[in-house]
């Protein structure tokens, strides 16, 4: 607009100067008549010039205003923007009449008080008084609902219409999705030491209130090639001190061919069914025994890299191979120096990563099949191999099988009703060496195995009941006195109420039976948990 002002000032100056010149008398007056005639002619030509300039000026002004409106309309990502950004000339030109300079712009004001052409009006509550176009009594088009007026037969450069046009016009999604999830558990138990009775680090650790899983999840597309995910967990310990853990933080490819996907960072190992998942997706308050005792209280996870391949067969099948450090508490059965520098009573050797053989290798193969249109099974076999810290040349192998079944009827409302049956069995071969400087009297090989099986029945919208059986067999030893090496079983039952998709209450009862061994007596324990969970932020999607 500024440029148009200065232009008009400039033109006005020229006109004024011409007028001034014209007002001066001529040099040699030979005859008054002649002079008068000349003056008249000059006046006439000046007037002509003035009109000419004025017309030019108007045209310029219009052009500028016009361009401005195009710029405005392009800037405006408003809900009203009905058409994909196309070249300005076609954009501004209205569909039907074509005056040189448009006086309205449907792309900016689509519904300006019923100025829509007849037959295009939304019927609303007013029946059309007279048959509109094409002899149709009822309208067959409605420009107020279909913003993208491009005809189907036209060229399709705008195959994907203007981004952000859906609904409100604000851009969809965001660079970073943030969600927050908090789990609070009130616990009562016959065992004063819930932290040893429960096997998972997110499980209740004491009688009273527990907040062991407050997580912040971040995810988004990094660029056209990668997407990123991070899960930062805050845990309140029994003294209400906050522990922070980077539970997961990884990038993964989105663009590899042949159904391949690579991932690198800190991530949960794809071993079995429950290990790679976050506690708020679990069907019970606490971790199954095999999960906590064989893969570890924190779950098996670590810094590493993974490649996954969707195998091109007619049913779903995926092969996954991960390579991770497996060092520290999150590599529990591997190079784990233990919290107090001991593991299975041995003084641990803090073995560093010297080569590939020091890493944990985890292959997994999973497959799924739809039994019927309402029943699906998903099964997998996993293994994890790596060295452990109880000897100079000791290693661990863990094998697992998992099976998941789900039934959901064809007329399910909000995901209800449903039946889910999930089972996992694991076997661990643990070579326990003689510890640092061979200070432990013997080397042993533990063959430990266990399984859990759980059924969850969503019997009424928002309600689910669950039953779980757990068994853990720890090989007996006359020399290794470790409370973790007590064979045990557990029965759990729970009832969950989901007021909405984003909150839930869960009441759970656990009956634990711990068997005697060379060092520990048998005992039974009863525990009751009441869990409350809230989820905020980005709508998480549910994996099968």
């Amino acid at each position, binding site marked *: 607009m500024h440029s148009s002002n200065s232009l008009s000032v400039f033109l006005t100056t020229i006109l004024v100067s011409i007028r001034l010149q014209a007002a001066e008398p001529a040099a040699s007056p030979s005859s008054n008549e002649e002079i008068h005639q000349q003056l008249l002619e000059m006046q006439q030509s000046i007037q002509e010039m003035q009109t000419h300039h004025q017309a030019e000026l108007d045209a310029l002004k219009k052009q500028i205003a016009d361009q401005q409106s195009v710029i405005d309309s392009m800037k405006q990502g408003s809900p009203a923007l009905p058409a994909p950004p196309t070249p300005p000339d076609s954009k501004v030109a209205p569909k039907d009449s074509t005056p040189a300079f448009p006086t309205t712009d449907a792309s900016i004001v689509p519904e300006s008080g019923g100025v829509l052409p007849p037959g295009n009006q939304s019927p609303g509550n007013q029946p059309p008084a007279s048959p509109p176009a094409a002899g149709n*009594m009822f309208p067959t088009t409605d420009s107020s609902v279909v913003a993208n007026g491009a005809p189907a037969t036209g060229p399709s450069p705008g195959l994907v219409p203007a981004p952000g046009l859906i*609904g409100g016009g604000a851009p969809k999604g965001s660079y970073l999705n943030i969600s927050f999830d908090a789990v609070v558990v009130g616990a009562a138990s016959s065992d004063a030491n819930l932290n040893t009775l429960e096997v998972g680090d997110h499980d209740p650790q004491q009688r009273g209130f527990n907040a062991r899983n407050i997580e912040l999840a971040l995810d988004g597309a990094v660029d056209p090639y990668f997407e990123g995910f991070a899960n930062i967990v805050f845990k309140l310990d029994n003294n209400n001190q906050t522990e922070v853990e980077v539970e997961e933080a990884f990038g993964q490819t989105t663009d590899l061919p042949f159904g391949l996907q690579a991932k690198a960072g800190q991530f949960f190992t794809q071993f079995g069914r429950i290990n790679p998942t976050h506690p708020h997706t679990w069907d019970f308050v606490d971790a199954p025994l095999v999960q906590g005792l064989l893969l570890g209280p924190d779950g098996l996870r670590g810094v590493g890299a993974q490649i996954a391949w969707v195998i091109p067969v007619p049913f779903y099948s995926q092969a996954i191979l991960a390579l991770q450090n497996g060092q520290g508490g999150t590599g529990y059965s591997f190079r784990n120096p233990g919290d107090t520098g001991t593991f299975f009573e041995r003084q641990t050797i803090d073995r560093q990563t010297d080569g590939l053989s020091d890493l944990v290798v985890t292959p997994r193969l999973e497959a799924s*099949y739809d039994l019927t249109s309402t029943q699906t099974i998903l099964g997998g076999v996993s293994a994890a191999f790596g060295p452990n810290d109880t000897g100079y040349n000791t290693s661990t192998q863990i094998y697992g099988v998992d099976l998941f079944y789900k039934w959901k009827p064809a007329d399910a409302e*909000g995901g209800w009703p449903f039946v889910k049956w999930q089972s996992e069995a694991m076997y661990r071969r643990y070579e326990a060496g003689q510890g640092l400087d061979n200070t432990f009297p013997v080397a042993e090989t533990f063959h430990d195995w266990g399984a859990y099986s759980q059924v969850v029945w969503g019997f009424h919208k928002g309600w689910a009941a669950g039953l779980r059986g757990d068994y853990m067999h720890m090989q007996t030893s006359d020399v290794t006195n470790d409370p973790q090496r007590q064979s045990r079983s557990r029965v759990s039952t729970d009832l969950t109420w989901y007021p909405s998709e984003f909150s839930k209450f869960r009441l759970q009862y656990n009956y634990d039976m711990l068997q005697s061994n060379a060092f520990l007596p048998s005992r039974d324990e009863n525990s009751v948990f009441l869990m409350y969970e809230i989820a905020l932020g980005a709508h998480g999607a549910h994996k*099968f």
Partner: protein
Amino acid sequence: MKHSIPMLLTVLAAFTGTARAKLSVVTTLADYAALAREIGGDHVDITSMAKPTEDPHFVDARPSFVVKLRSADILIEGGAELEVGWLPPLLQTARNPKLEAGAVGRVQAAEGIRLLDVPATLSRAAGDVHASGNPHFMVDPIIAKAVAAHIARAFAAADPANAASYATNEKKFEATIDAKLQDWGRALLPFRGQHLAAYHDDWLYFARRFGFDVDVFLEPKPGVPPSPSHLAEVIGKIKAEKIKAIIVEPYHNRKIAEKVASSTGAHVVEAAQYPDGLPNTATYVELIDVLVTRLTTALKN
């Protein structure tokens, strides 16, 4: 052992390399599948993931869908958050570059459609609202025509050899809808301006097209199950506004609707948003036919 690798490769090639004459189309919902069938005819293979009788907000991300998506040329989805709870992990595992956001093969039906009820402020206190607006827009036949055109453009772009056929089918569909709109409009004309009740707030596009006002809902807020106190309020409103019909869908709790109906004198209208969600509604036109018939029957009483 020597032979096993080449043999494995041959088997894999047999699975993957089958010459695909037809365009492979996957749709999230049955309504898009019905339109894709109209447009694609014999040139396309169509799989719909959600069942027509199932709540489209909560579909299980079954791994078998990954297999379909992995080899699909086209994915047709609503794109207005209706499928946000189950589609993303499927696409993440399918890793099909043809279906990437912005690719020719990714059809988001809501694009170009002006959605209603776009929330001014986002809060889950309002229930299960969608930030992009109400995504149940396909029951407006005029919108269905626009989506059909969108699908036809995508098919033509992905399969130029049959572009003419897709364009012809699209024109045919458009003409059918234009003619049918006259029938439907005439049938529903006597009931214009009437108020209706529905279980879930997903009939606003249908109501706008045919001049109804669906303004009483058995759910207190979208996705929130009816509470006794809310139902008492609903019964009062139905009586006060002399509402004659309560629209329920296959996955809604029919018993609740029946209870409200019996204490108000209104009729329960079993409806569906998706072709094949009701008997004899294999196509989009048949579905709207049945909806119009059922509504007029209920409202005549």
